[in-house]
């Protein structure tokens, strides 16, 4: 099963999370939820970089929303950066672009946490 690879990097209180893989979809979303479960316990501000994620489906959106909710519960936030066109279209379609802020680069996203 293709799971989503997750690597992260913290700088100045902001955690940049790189997601890569064939898909974040029904086939691996459980695993993704498990892998990200504790991530929001100790940190608040996240930038998810999606450039190496080729495909996201509705269950993938659900998992990302659950991340957003956990971050909000801690007074933090999740912002998205470098989102491939097909994934961005999906976000717009289900109007998630209004819940998630989407930025062209991870630097653009990180800056907004600081202002």
């Amino acid at each position, binding site marked *: 099963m293709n799971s989503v690879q997750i690597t992260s990097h913290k700088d100045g209180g902001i955690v940049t999370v790189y997601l890569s893989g064939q898909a974040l*979809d029904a086939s691996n979303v459980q695993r993704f939820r498990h892998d990200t479960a504790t991530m929001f316990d100790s940190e608040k501000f996240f930038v998810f970089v999606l450039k190496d994620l080729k495909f996201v*489906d509705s269950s993938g959106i659900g998992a990302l929303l659950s991340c957003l909710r956990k971050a909000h519960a801690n007074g933090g936030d999740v912002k998205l950066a470098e989102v491939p066109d097909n994934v961005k279209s999906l976000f717009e379609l289900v109007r998630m672009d209004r819940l998630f802020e989407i930025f062209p680069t991870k*630097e653009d996203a990180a800056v907004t946490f600081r202002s």
Partner: protein
Amino acid sequence: MKILIADDEQVSRMVLDRTLRALDYDVDVAVDGRQAWEMLEARHYSIVIADWVMPEVDGIELCQRIRRANVEAYTYVILLTSKFEKTDRLTGLTAGADDFITKPFDRAELSARLGVARRILRMETELRDAKQRIEEKRRQEIEIGANIQRSLLMARPPEGATAFEFAAMNLPSTAIDGDFFDFFVHRSTVVDVFVGDAMGKGIPAALIGAGTKNTLLRSISRLLSDTGDGRLPSPRDVVQTAHSTLARELIRLNAFVTLEYARLDSEKKIATFVDCGHTKVLHWVAKDQKTHELSGGNFPIGFVPEETYGQFEVPFEDGDVFCFYSDGVTDARASDGDFFGSDRLVELLGKHAHESPSELMYRLREAIRSHTSDLDLDDDFTVVIVRVGSPAEPWESTQRGFRSDLSSLTEMRQFVGFVGLDCNLDAKEIDELQLATHEALTNVIMHAHENSGHEVIDIEAERLNNGIRVRIVYTGEGFAPGEVDEPSMNIYREGGWGLFIIQRCVDKVSYGTSRPGVNYIELVKLTP
């Protein structure tokens, strides 16, 4: 305007706090540099007044951290120094401090210096707003350019030239480019293909590309009606005629256009090319299974006012493949700067030339996507693939069986991508078809088959005049949803978009039973 005071001396901190409040400022207080930094990480302060001497994180260190953070909105930093402490203002300025106040401070002086800070911050905000407005304008321009590109510069593979099989694709870059292509079908066995690139970026390049394409099409029509006896004008004459209209204008605009104009004649088995400085055409020869790079020696259109165009001929056989591409393909760069390059293109063509042009195109697109991580195409990516000979198996409908398992989803999406390309869907339409099919398949696998992995799902594709019908056939419990509501924009919702996505991504969706125990979901995607 929010001010943060960072001072470890309680008395001086209190005096400062009171003074600022009396001056009507909104003030937060930190008892040392470390706490100040934590507060700065959590929110933005317009002005920070920090004591120079503090334990652990001192005023200088705090200043350096603020400057390093590279935030969008500016933080104005005032350092407090004491007459009795040895401090060097140059060190403070180098660390990024904007001003200094000596303790014990004078209230009038403090007020005046804060006035300066506010003036500078206001100018900074105005500058930032102006920058944002410019960026917004630029985004709008890119959008307009992308629309021109989709509607005027690109074409769909031609119907009617049945002696050939075509696939064409364009992925626009962020900075609009002037790539264009089109086809002119003379008869079922003779077709002209041209691919060009107007130099430059943005809307000017897109308009020049559109103008050039239009002029070429008009040149063919005019020459055809001039001869009037059914003889075809030579490719050289077509380009020469277009040149006579375009060259002076292009030179005046300080622009030029590279162009590859080809005529493929499958009766004579001859391809004729006029190459005007475009990227080489790849010719995969079925007989010896080798790829040849073809190029001629004309200048791009608009380079020189007087140019006499030459053409060259290449023989071909059934099964041969021609690949026209823009330099955006070979120049597609990975994040480490590695170009996709022509070697990779030649290798991919050699490996998959026996497949249909659509499959070949799909593989190329995936290869470029994974090479560039799907981002930052510096140039447009345009490819036209022509295979000589009617499709080996000209499918009106085709089907493939898959194991009903979530891990088959990637493979299923790929199959839908192939057939979509074969039915002339463009990149965006294919993304939508793949997404809709994926959502429908997930429902079948999860709900009808409970992800057992023992069942089989057939995906059937049927070519329509203007699109494709994809039918997912499965056994087991039938699946038929009721009305689909628009999803509410609710953070607490985690699912239920699937049906909505399906409905929005395809033009028609229907659920049914073909015979007892066998159900289907049918998706129709039309090309406009």
